[in-house]
């Protein structure tokens, strides 16, 4: 046993430190950077849901579905129901996304590999079709939403950027800490072992299908929260959120991150936003090419994602310590 074994308390402590550091440093960041980080964190928590599914041995190519569900929930809650509290809208976004995913979870959990990916993709495209045709949801123009309040306090023009950033950091931070504790838990290890060998898990007495179904719903909640946070920061939602290319972005981030590290999901998401922002500024017509080359390089040199940079090195060092 090493001193570095993760316990929930240690994870909580480390997570709180990172959250506080991000909150403090955010105060002195330029506006464009807090906005970029807000969007990266909102997208990153969607990818974190895919990471959880990757640990179960499946990849969803339809997280645009839950991302859009969360985003539309926030925009409709704000516009149609008059709910203005940002935290309430964020939570509602996650909840509605999970409720939409839940009826499909048991069906989809029967499938693996490309079939799982295509089924989730199909579901997200169904939502895309519905959104683009429906006038209640604003059709292809989507919906706008105004500035949200927090516990009755409405931020000013000067503070809105940082406020949304801070709320996103806290919400995403809490989900991330919970996710790390889950990864290290009894259920988390059974999930990870199902990725390697489902037969063994079944013969030891656990249901892989039920694991995947549960994780699918959790991933949907993460996706909905991410969608709501993104729409609150952007002030706009459109059917493209459920389009397959959007889901592709999340898969891109999840593959870049690998399945080892929660932190990696956000580093990968920030990397995607940075590459996208800068390459679309400097070579607007070929930035997808830059993204493609970037992904190729990752797959060639870091097939288990950037999280493997520190997680596997750490394991290797403990083995050396153990044998020394």
């Amino acid at each position, binding site marked *: 046993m090493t001193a570095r074994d993760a316990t929930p308390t240690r994870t909580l402590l480390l997570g709180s430190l990172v959250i506080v550091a991000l909150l403090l440093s955010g105060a002195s960041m330029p506006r464009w950077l807090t906005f970029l980080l807000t969007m990266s964190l909102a997208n990153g928590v969607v990818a974190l849901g895919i990471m959880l599914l990757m640990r179960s041995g499946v990849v969803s190519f339809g997280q645009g579905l839950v991302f859009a569900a969360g985003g539309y929930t926030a925009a409709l809650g704000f516009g149609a129901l008059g709910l203005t509290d940002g935290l309430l809208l964020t939570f509602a976004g996650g909840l509605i996304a999970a409720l939409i995913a839940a009826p499909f979870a048991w069906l989809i959990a029967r499938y693996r590999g490309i079939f799982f990916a295509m089924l989730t993709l199909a579901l997200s495209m169904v939502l895309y079709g519905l959104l683009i045709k429906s006038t209640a949801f604003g059709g292809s123009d989507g919906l706008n939403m105004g500035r949200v309040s927090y516990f009755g306090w409405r931020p000013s023009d000067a503070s809105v950027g940082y406020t949304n950033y801070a709320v996103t950091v806290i919400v995403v931070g809490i989900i991330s800490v919970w996710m790390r504790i889950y990864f*290290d838990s*009894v259920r988390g*290890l059974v999930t990870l*072992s199902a990725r390697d060998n489902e037969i*063994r*898990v*079944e*013969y*030891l007495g656990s249901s892989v299908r039920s*694991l995947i179904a549960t994780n699918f719903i959790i991933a949907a909640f993460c996706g909905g929260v991410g969608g709501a946070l993104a729409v609150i920061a952007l002030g706009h939602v459109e059917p493209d959120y459920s389009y397959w290319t959007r889901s592709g972005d999340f898969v891109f981030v999840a593959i870049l991150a690998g399945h080892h590290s929660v932190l990696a999901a956000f580093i990968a998401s920030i990397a995607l936003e940075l590459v996208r922002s800068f390459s679309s500024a400097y070579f607007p017509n070929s930035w997808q090419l830059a993204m493609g080359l970037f992904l190729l390089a990752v797959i060639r040199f870091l097939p288990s994602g950037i999280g493997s940079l520190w997680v596997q090195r750490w394991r290797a060092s403990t083995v050396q310590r153990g044998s020394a």
Partner: protein
Amino acid sequence: MSSMNAISAQGIQKKFGAVTAAADVQMTIAHGERVSLIGSNGAGKTTFVNMLTGYIKPDAGEIMLDGQSIIGMPPRQIARMGVARSFQIPQLYHSLTVQNNLLAALAAQQSNLSFLQPAKNAESVARASEILQRFDLLMHADRLVSELPGGVRKLLDIAMALTSQPKVLLLDEPTSGVSADEKFPMMDTVMRALEGSRTTVLFVEHDMDIVLRYSQRVIAFYSGRIIADDQPLQALAMPEVKPYVTGQISADADHA
């Protein structure tokens, strides 16, 4: 209250198309017995094991575990009732360390998989180490399964099956793929690990040296029927069994 018999099977029938895999199979196995199931390929051993673990449902008949019917139950429910199995080809978690394989095996048996309780808690780690110790695997604890040699994988596969402290342990060809000079030390390790437990052990085995040395009773299958059920020496000497067994021994001699 537990019944006298660990396993009791009555009138088991199973057909795959025109192939009869089980024809009126009857057997009772007492608690703590060490029984070998032998028979050539296609004789019905594996089908019987698969019915016992819930992987296949018999066409007719009754299988009782400790006095309780298991017909129609899925494998994981039967596993939770105390039937564990190892596999001819070890079924392990390749990307995890040996210790994590054991921890994952212990975790998978919990009734409500906790989201919060760390998998690497002191109690489970101690339990995993104790099992690894019994199987002489402790020195491999931090190695990845993908780095392990075949014999160690076979042992780990059996060690994982024993994490549940099962009532019945099914060993599917425990020495297949293990070299001739390693098979006895390996089986000695397994038997030592089982010492003192009341676990009923069923081997599916092709190696008659192993059958003779480690079982108290032999059940021979041929074409879906039980053709012999006796103590090892007597069973192997029976005229119905002999042709098969002598064939096996000469095949072994060829390998050596």
